[in-house]
């Protein structure tokens, strides 16, 4: 059951492929509050309703939600549907959730966005600026005409853009930006998976601590898979992790510094198998037999949970 009913109140074309929507409550109920970094899940109508997550760009406390959506012609259809919406159309949504919150322990925030990843990062930048908290912002893209919110982003005090035009030497200078890790600086990254991986790897090499690093995979994973995030509790390790919509349980464990066993990462081999203690598995592997599944086996590399919590024996 959707928890919200929203109505399209304003539509702006920001770039040839990116459209901004302002959504207001379709009934008299006030919109639920959210914090910077949160996302909104829209129900995409079709034979089988699926959900697509979009970062909230506006400041908390307004009576509307602002999202910006890039049309992915090769995607599963969510973005094409958003782009087909007209003023006054009604959409169902889940209340905002936040897997990418701002830490309240930072002295300084280093924000890095690439492509449509600017939506989450800009939401943070606006909030930090409103609170007068120090931050710097880096916004990378290939072509200025395809970069939403570019002008607004560059208007902040410590902001710069990295527009490569396809040239290697003009790309985000990660090593320079991250060169001096300081204990109070927290890093926030949002963009395509490859960019996030590359920035995270550099940061770790340069001595950044894991609790200073925050990231959200964007578009590709978020929008195309339509998967929900869930919480995974690892009984033997004694840790609980958030699995984002575009992440696997295995990747989440690796990112958390655990050392799980795995091989193929595509659900073939069965090396990463764990036992489900609680929760409902959504099996995506082609390795396990029905008997294996019935006995609780679960491939952490591809399979997910249809419950909000999954408890594994790892």
């Amino acid at each position, binding site marked *: 059951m959707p928890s919200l009913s929203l109505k399209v109140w304003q539509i702006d074309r920001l770039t040839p492929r990116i459209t901004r929507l302002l959504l207001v409550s379709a009934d008299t109920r006030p919109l639920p509050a959210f914090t910077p970094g949160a996302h909104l899940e829209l129900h995409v109508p079709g034979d089988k309703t699926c959900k697509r997550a979009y970062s909230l760009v506006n400041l908390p406390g307004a009576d509307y939600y602002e999202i910006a959506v890039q049309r992915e012609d090769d995607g599963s259809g969510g973005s094409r549907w958003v782009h087909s919406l007209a003023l006054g159309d009604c959409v169902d949504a889940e209340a905002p959730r936040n897997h990418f919150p701002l830490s309240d322990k930072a002295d300084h925030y280093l924000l890095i966005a690439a492509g449509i990843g600017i939506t989450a990062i800009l939401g943070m930048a606006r909030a930090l600026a409103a609170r007068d908290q120090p931050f710097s912002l880096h916004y990378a893209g290939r072509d200025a005409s395809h970069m939403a919110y570019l002008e607004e982003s560059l208007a902040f005090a410590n902001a710069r853009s990295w527009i490569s035009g396809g040239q290697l030497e003009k790309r985000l200078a990660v090593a320079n930006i991250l060169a001096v890790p300081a204990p109070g600086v927290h890093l926030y990254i949002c963009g395509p998976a490859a960019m996030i991986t590359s920035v995270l790897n550099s940061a770790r090499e340069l001595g950044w601590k894991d609790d200073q690093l925050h990231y959200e995979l964007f578009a590709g994973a978020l929008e195309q898979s339509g998967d929900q995030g869930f919480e995974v509790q690892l009984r033997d390790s004694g840790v609980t992790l958030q699995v984002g919509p575009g992440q696997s349980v295995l990747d989440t464990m690796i990112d958390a510094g655990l050392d799980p066993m795995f091989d193929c990462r595509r659900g073939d*081999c*069965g090396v990463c*198998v764990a036992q489900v203690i609680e929760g409902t598995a959504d099996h995506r592997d082609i390795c396990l037999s*029905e008997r294996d599944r019935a006995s609780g086996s679960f491939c952490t590399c591809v399979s997910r949970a249809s419950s909000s919590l999954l408890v594994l024996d790892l």
Partner: protein
Amino acid sequence: MIPTNEQIAALIREDSVHKSVYTDPTLFQLEMERIYGHAWIYVGHESQVKNAGDYHTTRIGDQDVVMVRGANGQVNVLYNRCPHKGAKLVADGDGSTGKFFRCPYHAWTFKLDGKHLSAPLKSGFEGTCYDPAHPDFSMASVARVENYRGFVFASQAAYGPDLKGFLGGVITSIDNLCDRSPIGEVEVAGGVFRVQQRSNWKVFYENLHDTMHARVTHESSVEAARSEAEAIGEMPFELLIMDGNGEPYDFWEKLELRAYHNGHGYMEAIFDPAAAERDEVSRAHFDCLSQAYGEPRARAILGMNRHNTVIYGSGSPHTVFMQFRVIRPVSVDRTMVEIQTFRCKGAPDAVFDRALTYANVINSPSSNVMPDDVEVYARCQEGNMTRGGEWISMHRYVGTDTPLEDGAVSTNGTSELPMRNQFAAWKQFMTATLIAKESTHAA
């Protein structure tokens, strides 16, 4: 036709052996079952598999095995075979297999203790007897594995004496090798040499304590060392160790040969221990051990001046110069020898340098010394293939050895006691008297 115990026993006389023990492929096959299928065999040193997943492949007789460090730090010895189609899971050599073995054929996977981990597309096993918990679907472990001060031995028999009981008195050679480190630990370092010999494996064991061959077989290398020393006006370490083989017969006669049950033994060193303390390297080593153990114990450790030790079936440690020549039978007329050199952890670098020099000058394929031996081994193999005679002599000082509770000791250093002792053990293994005794015990 498998020979009867009586036929096998008849090949071994007190003073001679029948040449077929070196040339008969049927006997070789029986050796693989009855000796290598039961005895404790050196697999490798744990330093060859430092981290979880590191492996070292080798052979126990005719069996391909892999020594691997498990996730819990324990060293496992497994047959190198996938239970699916039988493929060897890892290629020969050393490496890391990660957290598990994966067969290159169909991606069946196994934990580092050999237990079945997974296989793809398991729905194909529904309704079959496939059972991941059943041993038929796991890699098999060699029946028993023991680690003595880092030296990993395995026995393919589930019952029998433990490693210490099997090694008897030669365990003190392993102790002495380790004690030469101030922290009591050694590690294989500097790579290994491998030499394929065109001869039966037993010839090498016999030669290790054959004092009568040194000044004859090695005459050319002794002469080369002496003329070089004369030309340069000194006898550096490299030449000294070549020169050692040239001692006159009365020197060898005074040495002591010690024989233990199961074919093991050692001989006293041919190098003067006092001389070893005069040089700079030995002095530095002595100082280092004195600090760790105190002077009296340091003197005792460095004063135990053994030349080759024989661990029958495994090979020959050399404690003074920190080598282990691992002897692997390949076929009735082929033997692979792997020469490992050890670093004594915490000892001066020069001690390891000297061990490497010894490996290079005496034991390596390109040394001036070992090729002399390899040549005569091959001649023995080929000569014994002729119809020119049936028996091999080991008459020297027969009947004069002094029996001891755990073996025997020679009264003359040129005695062929070591050969007689090795063949006594050979006969015991091969006539299955040992096996029969163990079976009774197990029952």
